[in-house]
């Protein structure tokens, strides 16, 4: 897993609530058997018309918005457990997703892939949307070590929570499998003692 420390970047704003994983990556694009290439179909049905032409009014198709931080409305990532949703977001070039609420499985999947989900208050989220509404190059500063996000334009800063174990995984670039494999003997003992 790749390491994550700090990031200062422009934002892609997606001010929609309850964005489910079927929007992030529709089921018909889940047929690949590798992890790569899903970014092409990220938000497929919002990005393309039925005849495969680009929907020019969708934010991901607007060259004025680019950056490695996706900012979305409340309850992001609800729906299916498909990890392809996290892969697609990462593959499209994002390192961070910010929302005021995340669905559980999505959050876990994101963290397991080094994509950082950051939950902020409704107010802080609204301020990001308003800042980027006025200036599409507005930046956010994300610092995992201190667990803070700063709106570079307004100077507002907020803390975010992350499980300390997951934080160390992201910073050091190791994953759960490495962690458990190191304790495999405990697992075998558990099996024998049941």
């Amino acid at each position, binding site marked *: 897993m790749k390491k994550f420390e700090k990031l200062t970047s422009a934002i892609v704003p997606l001010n929609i609530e*309850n964005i489910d994983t*079927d*929007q992030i990556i529709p089921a018909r694009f889940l047929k690949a*058997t590798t992890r790569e290439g899903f970014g092409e179909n990220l938000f497929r049905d919002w990005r393309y018309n039925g005849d495969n032409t680009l929907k020019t009014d969708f934010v991901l198709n607007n060259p004025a918005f680019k950056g490695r931080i996706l900012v979305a409305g409340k309850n992001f990532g609800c729906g299916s457990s498909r990890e392809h949703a996290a892969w697609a977001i990462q593959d499209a070039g994002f390192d961070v997703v910010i929302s005021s609420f995340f669905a*559980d499985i999505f959050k876990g999947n994101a963290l397991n892939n080094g994509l950082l989900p950051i939950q902020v208050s409704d107010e802080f989220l609204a301020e990001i949307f308003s800042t980027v509404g006025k200036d599409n190059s507005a930046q956010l500063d994300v610092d995992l070590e201190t667990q803070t996000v700063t709106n570079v334009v307004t100077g507002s800063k907020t803390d975010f929570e992350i499980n300390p174990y997951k934080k160390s995984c992201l910073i050091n670039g190791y994953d759960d*499998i490495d962690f458990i494999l190191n304790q495999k003997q405990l697992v075998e003992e558990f099996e024998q003692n049941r």
Partner: protein
Amino acid sequence: MSKTLVEKIWDAHVVKSEVGFPDILYIDTHLIHEVTSPQAFDGLRKRGLPVFRPQQTVATADHNVPTLNQLQPIKEELSRYQVDMLTKNCAEFGIELYGLGHPFQGIVHVIGPELGITLPGKTMVCGDSHTSTHGAFGAIAFGIGTSQVEQVFATQCLLQQKPKTMKIEVNGALGQGVTAKDIILYIISKISAAGGTGYFIEYAGSTIEALSMEARMTICNMSIEMGARGGLIAPDQITFDYIKGREFAPAGEEWDKSLAYWKTLYSDADATFDSVLTFDAADISPMITYGTNPGMGMGIAEHIPSTASQVASEQASFQKALDYMGIEQDTELVGKAIDYVFIGSCTNSRMEDLREVAEFVKGRQKAENVTVWIVPGSKQIEQQAIAEGLDKIFEAAGFQLREPGCSACLGMNEDKIPAGKYCVSTSNRNFEGRQGPDSRTFLASPLTAAAAAITGRVTDVRTLLNEPAHA
């Protein structure tokens, strides 16, 4: 110390618990299918690891499979490749596969219970969010992502934070035409599509206790639609009777031993839940969803809420959903013309669902403008339906009985609802495009779906239940 059911099962599976770290939780049974497993197998290969406990892993092909001419080679190249990969991976890693053509094949959450693999007190996972279905037996069962599939392959364990617990009690008798599906759609409409996030839900109360196992599965299945990690119901005599004699269920001495343990699986009377909600069965009518998340549901005779009645921050999303669905605020859905009816998915594709639909449509005919697909949850159910003559009843009514799979629940195979068309569906998600690009889904019970098939319109099934069918 008194414990909830979730805590009892959880604590019995903790390999290691350390402050500041998630628990290492032992997983008894790992179910896999073709869509969320290939990258996990690949990961194992890259790390040079075997599957640690292949005997505790069971595979089937369901998400991507055709529901007509299932034994012909799959036409769609990518789907075929994915199903072939599963076969190859299972052979390489020593995993039992109930693939196409096998008498046990079916939707992963239908075959686990049906084969006696799903048992009280177990921990079970699958790379599919509706793994919560298995909780109906008093198991801790939840959906995981592909990295976690790899983790369970490699270690038979998962790193997990102990979840918060919620109890949802439903008490009293159900009204006419009201089924388990209506109960769960009602609960989700009350607490919203995110109302259960972070919780494991225990369903209890006299209404739940009176339900059959199949109905309980319908309830637990949709726990994820309110954001919950899982849902479960304490096992009782109904559970034990259902399990006894199934293919892989314990037998003989093992049975007695298991039964004695299963009888200890309930929440202690003075156990505390992080949250408790209570509902009255008498308040529940046949339900239907009108929007694009399962929380946007209402009693079928009600009016769609107005946009202005929504919380200010949610009005735009609400209106967007209505626009997508092509419906107006403040109107009723009853009478709305529909194009498709889909009776299937791990929510409602079991024998009881098919029997209920058959009984209702016997002597009736589908409306001309409607296409009706009945997709059984497993090969065994398909065979049983034929043995009971339900196929003849469906055929006479103009309903197509197809072969088992996930089908139009997620439209990964050919079974897609065309753009702009309306489908009354017994599945669990009404997301934009879930059943096919730009398709529009009304979620409902099998009975309400069958009623819509007959009239060609969204229908309050109660008006037909009192009317004799014409032969």
